[in-house]
């Protein structure tokens, strides 16, 4: 499973990279979304998969999966949610103010004379 996950994560990173390199702002933000999915899955995979029951003591299982990566991912998910929300609103405002979502037109070169 871990090997499969490694490939899935690779695919997620690949797609994310591709999207982040494209011109339109929306696609870039979607790319960051995929990127964080990949990162979270990776963190989970790195803790080892399916090594026991869900980390709830009520399960009375002989072994539990590693709860620590899960806690870390939870934190990371929340943070990336905040960032994504911010980024989206930023994209919206950028379009409102500058009238484009094409990164090529968002170059700008102040002070480059």
């Amino acid at each position, binding site marked *: 499973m871990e090997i499969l996950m490694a490939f899935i994560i690779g695919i997620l990173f690949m797609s994310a990279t591709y999207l982040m390199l494209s011109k339109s702002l929306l696609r870039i933000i979607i790319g960051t979304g995929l990127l964080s999915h990949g990162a979270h899955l990776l963190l989970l995979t790195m803790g080892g998969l399916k090594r026991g*029951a*869900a980390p709830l003591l009520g*399960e009375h299982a002989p072994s539990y999966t590693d709860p620590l990566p899960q806690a870390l991912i939870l934190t990371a998910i929340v943070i990336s949610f905040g960032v994504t929300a911010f980024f989206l609103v930023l994209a919206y405002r950028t379009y409102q103010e500058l009238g484009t979502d094409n990164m090529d037109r968002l170059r700008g070169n102040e002070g480059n004379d």
Partner: protein
Amino acid sequence: MLMTIVLIAILCISVAIAGLIYRVIKGPTTPDRIVALDAIGINLVAIIALVSIALDTNAYLEVILLLGILAFIGTVAFSKYLEKGVIIENERDR
């Protein structure tokens, strides 16, 4: 026995979801997509329930209700967006 049935059921519902995804992508109108999405949400509930049985754990039962709630709110929001163009009205015109 039970496990086999559960796995078969998961398979069935997976196929159903796949079909619904086809509808989501195909369209042709936005309401079609919403219908399909709503159905996907509901089917996910079923999948979670089946997975809980398969894993013999009640850890995921919260997820069931949560999914139901989300699917409902999502559908309401979508349909409202379609109907009125806005999702949240500042002041409802009477």
